[in-house]
């Protein structure tokens, strides 16, 4: 039986803008509903504040960073403190400048459909990374 690793999902979860909350919602959808057995999550700030375990995971196994805006904190932070992500997603590719608005930084109101679309894309990346492993 071929070993297939779990994929690490690292959402920026940025507090200041809608893109951060949408990245968090899409990541949670994958973690809890679409791919609960194929994924783990790492709180992004743990790369700096945590112990070596978080950094080591991202060095050994594939990760997907899900950034809410073009500042790309999750991608940069993961690369800086651990290893380059296998996939770097920028939600501005889905949301445009809306990602920087504050409309849905607290609650998801009108973005359910786009959250699901992003979650489905994350899930497709997970399947591909696991198939390509090794």
């Amino acid at each position, binding site marked *: 039986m071929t070993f297939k690793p779990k994929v690490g999902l690292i959402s920026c979860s940025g507090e200041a803008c809608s893109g951060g909350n949408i990245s968090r919602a899409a990541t949670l959808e994958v973690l809890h509903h679409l791919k609960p057995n194929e994924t783990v999550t790492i709180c992004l700030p743990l790369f700096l504040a945590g112990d070596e375990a978080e950094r080591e995971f991202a060095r050994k196994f594939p990760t997907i960073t899900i950034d809410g805006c073009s500042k790309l*904190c999750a991608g940069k932070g993961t690369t800086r403190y651990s290893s380059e992500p296998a996939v770097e997603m920028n939600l501005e590719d889905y949301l445009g400048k809306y990602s920087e608005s504050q409309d849905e930084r607290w609650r998801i109101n009108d973005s359910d459909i786009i959250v699901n679309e992003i979650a489905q894309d994350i899930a497709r990346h997970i399947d591909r990374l696991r198939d390509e492993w090794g």
Partner: protein
Amino acid sequence: MKKVVIPCSGIGKAFGAVAREATYLLSDGEYNDMFTTICLPLLMTDDKESKRIVMESDVYTIDGCPKKCASVLVKHVGGTPAMEIMTPKVLAENKEHKPETVLDIGSGGRLLADDIVNLILKHGGSTK
């Protein structure tokens, strides 16, 4: 100048979600004239504007686990939190306000978020 509330960004545990809820009750609720928030991950990327805000403002950190990411990152860029809140410790003082899950903190979690809000308001010179 507004006071800055920074939650831990935790996505794995209900306590992180409670920290986030408390933050928005302050920054986007009825106290939005007194409080704001910034993205915690920006402090990992040496963002100059975020560093400046942290250095010049009263910062309240709300952490969901003992790793204390919010507090650690604020200190990492040279800031000194005016108050460091650990959500599990607040729960220990209000045991019936237990959050449910990261997806839905439930009524207990919302009460716990209110407890945190009240702690910060008390420290910040205001009461609910």
